[in-house]
């Protein structure tokens, strides 16, 4: 646990203190040991990093069968690659095309495909992002440096229940010769959220 965003956009300091106090109490009372907590956290976050999302995307770009399975049932498809074992939430992957762009948010709190992508960036949890991207996505995306053509249809996915979302970005032009691993290295976290394209 860190003390949050040094820029002050979103502070976790208070909740971190509470969590640390709870951990200490649970250990003092002998309910569980620090090792157990670490093991549970390690298991929960196994493979949870933007690199995993990037690997999923690169596989979808190079394997049409995997791509259709991923779009039909994201949870089952990423399990083929060893991710999200035992996760309670569903994963839905939404695909960007020449005419449509997708971006994800959680306006009520900060739901995020944590089991696949790891902890979310601080700005994802900020009130500014959460309240504005559903209302004026084009303006928000421009602030991320992403200017979409007027003709592009934008869909904002607000993670209000049990499904978590990830964007399948478009494969960059001129990458025909690249191997899957090289393609994965091109994929950024913001592209998986939809606040960037590649």
């Amino acid at each position, binding site marked *: 646990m860190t003390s949050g965003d040094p820029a002050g956009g979103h502070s976790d300091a208070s909740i971190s203190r509470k969590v640390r106090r709870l951990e200490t109490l649970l250990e003092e009372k002998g309910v569980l040991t620090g090792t157990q907590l670490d093991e549970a956290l390690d298991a929960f976050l196994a493979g949870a990093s933007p690199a995993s999302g990037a690997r999923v995307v690169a596989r979808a770009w190079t394997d049409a069968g995997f791509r259709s399975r991923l779009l039909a049932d994201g949870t089952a498809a990423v399990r083929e690659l060893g991710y999200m074992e035992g996760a309670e939430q569903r994963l839905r992957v939404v695909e960007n095309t020449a005419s449509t762009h997708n971006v994800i948010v959680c306006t009520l709190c900060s739901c995020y495909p944590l089991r696949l992508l790891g902890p979310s960036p601080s700005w994802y949890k900020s009130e500014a992002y959460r309240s504005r991207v559903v*209302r004026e996505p084009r303006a928000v995306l421009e602030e991320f440096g992403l200017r979409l053509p007027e003709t592009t*249809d934008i869909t904002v996915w607000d993670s209000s229940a049990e499904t978590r979302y990830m964007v399948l970005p478009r494969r960059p032009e001129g990458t025909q010769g690249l191997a899957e691993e090289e393609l994965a290295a091109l994929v950024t976290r913001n592209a998986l959220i939809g606040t960037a394209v590649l």
Partner: protein
Amino acid sequence: MTDPAAAPTADDRFAPGARVRTFRHDPPHHTRLPRYARGKRGTVVEPEGPAALADVNARGRGDAPVEQIYAVRFAARDLWGEGDHHVVLDLWESYLEEDSDDER
């Protein structure tokens, strides 16, 4: 192959493509129907799979009804009065009612 949890079932009240309207409630407890989407018209995309109703679950009660959740697509214009984008929300069945054309 499609996600079996998200396949439409005979018990679903709404089919993909159904026009729905969200309730205009303002409960004193937790709810997953965001304020900006209350009393708004949208279109069901598809079911997302059933889950315990968060409004009841969050109050620590063990008797939360399990309901179908639907991905519902809203036009920005219907939510905010402006904009050309769409917003998709995942909403429990009891947040929704049929939007009959004659009320429009």
